[in-house]
């Protein structure tokens, strides 16, 4: 990327109100460090304490999704599950804070992930609460390292959330999710 391209990328992010953008390998330590910087920056911008807590929550849930589920990881590293590749953008558009996280997912998981998200997206607050509690009390699915309730949690707290998938090659899709405060 030459200097002009770099500047264009920066300009595009600025136009999108990005406070922060990271593309690369993510770890839990990075999550904690970036989270602290994010909180400080939002405090400096005089963002309401409640809003800061919510943005931080979306940030943690979504980044942990990348760390747990991104298809891209460094195989030579001993614990690849804690070292995965993704994109994180936190910003503010038209006065609304948003958190975008994106990563590659295996094509074989796309259908199920999409169905899960479609179902959650269509649910009322009451339905989300019921499902949330049900999942908190159920056994964690085998392929899930979290509680499997992260998306429901986001849906309950966000004013809205959007997601998209597009195929990258025969085996992978690019999955992006944005939650709005």
């Amino acid at each position, binding site marked *: 990327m030459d200097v002009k391209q770099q500047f264009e990328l920066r300009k595009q992010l600025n136009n999108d109100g990005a406070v922060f953008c990271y593309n690369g390998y993510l770890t*839990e330590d990075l*999550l*904690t460090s970036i989270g602290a910087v994010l909180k400080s920056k939002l405090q400096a911008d005089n963002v309401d*304490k*409640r809003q800061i*807590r*919510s943005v*931080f*929550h979306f940030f*943690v*849930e979504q980044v*942990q999704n990348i*760390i747990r589920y991104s298809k891209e990881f460094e195989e030579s590293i001993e614990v690849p599950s*804690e070292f995965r590749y993704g994109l994180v953008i936190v910003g503010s558009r038209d006065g609304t804070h948003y958190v975008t996280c994106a990563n590659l997912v295996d094509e074989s998981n796309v259908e199920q992930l999409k169905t899960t998200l479609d179902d959650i997206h269509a649910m009322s607050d009451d339905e989300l*609460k019921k499902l949330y*509690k049900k*999942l*908190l*009390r159920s056994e*964690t699915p085998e392929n899930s*390292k*979290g*509680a499997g*309730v*992260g998306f*429901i*949690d986001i849906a309950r*707290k966000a004013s809205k959330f959007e997601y998209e998938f597009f195929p990258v090659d025969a085996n992978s899709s690019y999955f992006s999710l944005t939650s709005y405060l």
Partner: protein
Amino acid sequence: MNNLVIEATKRTPGINFDFDNHVLSFTGESYPEDASVFFGEIISALNTYTTSTTSTTINVNFDLIYFNSSSAKALMRIFDMLDASANNNDILIKWFYEEDDDNMAELGEEFGEDLVNAKFELVIK
């Protein structure tokens, strides 16, 4: 049984289970890499304690600033265990929150509303 004390870290809560005085406390933030691993030891100690204690007043304090959804799952398990033990004990759960933190109050309420036997109280810090 031995008391259980775990120092808080940036993303794991402080645990102080004073079994001698029957006061159990959770403090700080909770978004560990693997919540089931972190809470495994805690849940196991709690299970031993609650199933071997009878006719006792037990105070449980949750003073948490933040927890993620996988920690919520462990907390739900802990609430259910405490409620089951409240058949044989007098259990009072206090859920602390900062005055302006409606979200933490709501989360507490949601755990508290399922309790049948244990007493539950929301407390402003």
